[in-house]
């Protein structure tokens, strides 16, 4: 988790990219933030941050460790609420709805904004129960048949069904790392979110499992707004359409992935992409 905080206040102003990324013209913006800040106790982790994230596309957040990209990701489904000292300022809207509105129900929000974590974290339950958990608590299924349908569909969409169809009742913790992560993605899909947040979903996996997940992300792009935090610039280049570069708690640059990797506007982005720091 990028909870570590920039030691010094930002020495640079947040620079808005001059031109609107091309992807924003094709897709409507799903998530829009205005002046979002995050404090952990006395320390500021995010300096006022504005970004628009497109629907039905993959957006990647890149940047060195501790740059605040994970912290910002956790703002989008209000996971920072679970950290007692964290304070979030500014405004984040999803489909125009302010998610920090006191009248908004966090529980519903999190069902609409699913999350996949760095380390696969299947519950110590059967594969079936892992996926059925979300639909059950939200009451999506009227009966067992409904539930089974949801589970099977989710597994299919996560590309895991063929591998586990004979052992749905065996524990989810018994799967391999890559399978576990796909199980977690299936679990997130099962509550049918609009947005799926992925916090370095492949950092604990081997290259083959990583490739499998990247493929999956690419498929899911058609139906969901996906935001992925990644350490790997190659991964960002492979899966995302929009890339945002974070540094020391500020958003340095946002742009179409292709443009960003071939022709970064900012010096710092360039340095990072060239591997001069990180």
């Amino acid at each position, binding site marked *: 988790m990028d909870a570590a905080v920039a030691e010094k206040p930002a020495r640079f102003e947040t620079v808005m990219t001059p031109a609107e990324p091309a992807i924003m013209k094709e897709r409507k913006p799903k998530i829009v933030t205005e002046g979002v800040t995050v404090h952990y106790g006395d320390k500021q982790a995010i300096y006022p941050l504005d970004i628009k994230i497109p629907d039905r596309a993959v957006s990647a957040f890149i940047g060195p460790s501790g740059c605040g990209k994970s912290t910002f990701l956790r703002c989008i489904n209000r996971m920072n609420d679970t950290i007692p000292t964290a304070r979030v300022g500014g405004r984040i809207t999803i489909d125009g709805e302010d998610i920090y509105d006191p009248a908004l129900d966090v529980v519903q929000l999190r069902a609409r904004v699913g999350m996949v974590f760095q380390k696969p974290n299947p519950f110590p339950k059967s594969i079936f129960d892992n996926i059925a958990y979300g639909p059950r*608590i939200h009451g999506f299924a009227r009966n067992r048949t409904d539930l089974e349908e949801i589970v099977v569909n989710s597994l299919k969409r996560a590309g895991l069904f063929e591998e586990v169809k004979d052992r749905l009742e065996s524990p989810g913790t018994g799967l391999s790392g890559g399978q576990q992560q796909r199980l977690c993605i299936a679990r997130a899909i099962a509550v049918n979110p609009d947005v799926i947040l992925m916090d370095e979903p492949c950092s604990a996996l081997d290259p083959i499992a990583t490739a499998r997940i990247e493929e999956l992300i690419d498929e899911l792009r058609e139906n969901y707004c996906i935001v992925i935090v990644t350490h790997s610039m190659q991964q960002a280049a492979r899966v995302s359409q929009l890339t945002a570069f974070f540094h020391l708690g500020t958003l340095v640059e946002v742009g179409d992935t292709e443009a960003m990797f071939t022709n970064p506007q900012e010096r710092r982005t360039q340095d990072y992409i060239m591997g001069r720091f990180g």
Partner: protein
Amino acid sequence: MADITADPARTRARAWNSDEARARTRKRYAAERRFRMYGIAALCFATAFLVILFTTIIGTGWTAFLQSKFLLNVTFAEDVIAPDGKRDEQTLRLANWDKIARTALYQVIGANEADRKERKDANELLSRGIDVQLRDMVLASPDLIGQTKPVWLLAQGNVDALLKGAIDRDIPEDRRQLNNRQLAWVDAAVDKGILAKKFNTGLFTFGASSQPETAGLLVAIVGSFFMMLTVALLAVPIGVAAAIYLEEFAPKNRWTDLIEVNINNLAAVPSIVFGLLGLAVFISFMGLPRSASLVGGLVLTLMTLPTVIIASRAALTAVPPSIREGALGVGASKMQAVFHHVLPLALPGIMTGTILGLVQALGETAPLLMIGLVAFVVDVPSTPLEPATALPVQIYMWASSAERGFVERTAGATIVLLGFLFIMNALAVFLRRRFERRW
């Protein structure tokens, strides 16, 4: 790819604002609040119990720290104490002390000495322990003989109970512990200020007694002290040595695994089983005396040992390996590294754990019952081999006494025990705060 619109989740998820979904959310939040309330209720239950327990014990026991005493002008008449003029110890021991106290009492309450019945009633107002009190005064300073001196003398248990409101004046005379005449005397004496509740020093200076007013805790306190001393002298070195071995030197093998499992299990063996061990090994087999605080101390040592070992190991583990490496790096042997560097750093933690072990030992009762510490011991033991009892055992013995006066004393003794435990715990907390080191 599956057909997405046919998915029941999708259709239902779209309807977040339907009445059904809203009702469901409300229900879920209600369940959340209920669950939270259960947690608060659980904590409140525990707190309430604690508060009730303490108020009961203190409410019942605080009066034990006061004892009713008569202020009498006692004339140490030579013709009563030493009629033949001899003042050797034998004479003084056998003197009729009751008589001089009673004479003083008859005077102040105006009892008719000639009437046998009245004399008996009056005698019943004074404790049976006053002879010892007066005798010890004169033995300490024989010059008192021939003088008249005001002395606070213990009143009888029933008088004390009356003053503390434990005797109902309204019940018929024939069923009351004090008759009407005695009641009148007591009231008059209280009005005159010669009968009053004073601080009960006897609670801390007397040994066992069948009369509540002369029963005290001294034997128990001394016994408990000897036991704590034994535990501290044995359990601490053995426990710390064992912890050092297991933590610093022991190879990882079956044998040390066995010791480890064994220590954890010993910590959970019922204390009464240690009592059986003490009875069979220390008393039957080794022939140590029953009722001796040494045996109690040995049993408590074995019982406390696992606690001390576990606490000491935790303290040793908390010392970072860099300290050991540093010492080894300058050429110290492993033993030197441990004794010169690791042990001093772990000492505060070890001390805290040890005190907690002692606290556990001080409150322990069951094993002591097995090895005969439930004895009626009047004389204060001067060595750990003499018969003694322990504070919690004294509470147990008093609790099973039928006499009313023992009820408040039982609770009073409990307050004393809790007081000692509180002091020891406070010491442990102080040590932890003062010396705690975070790496």
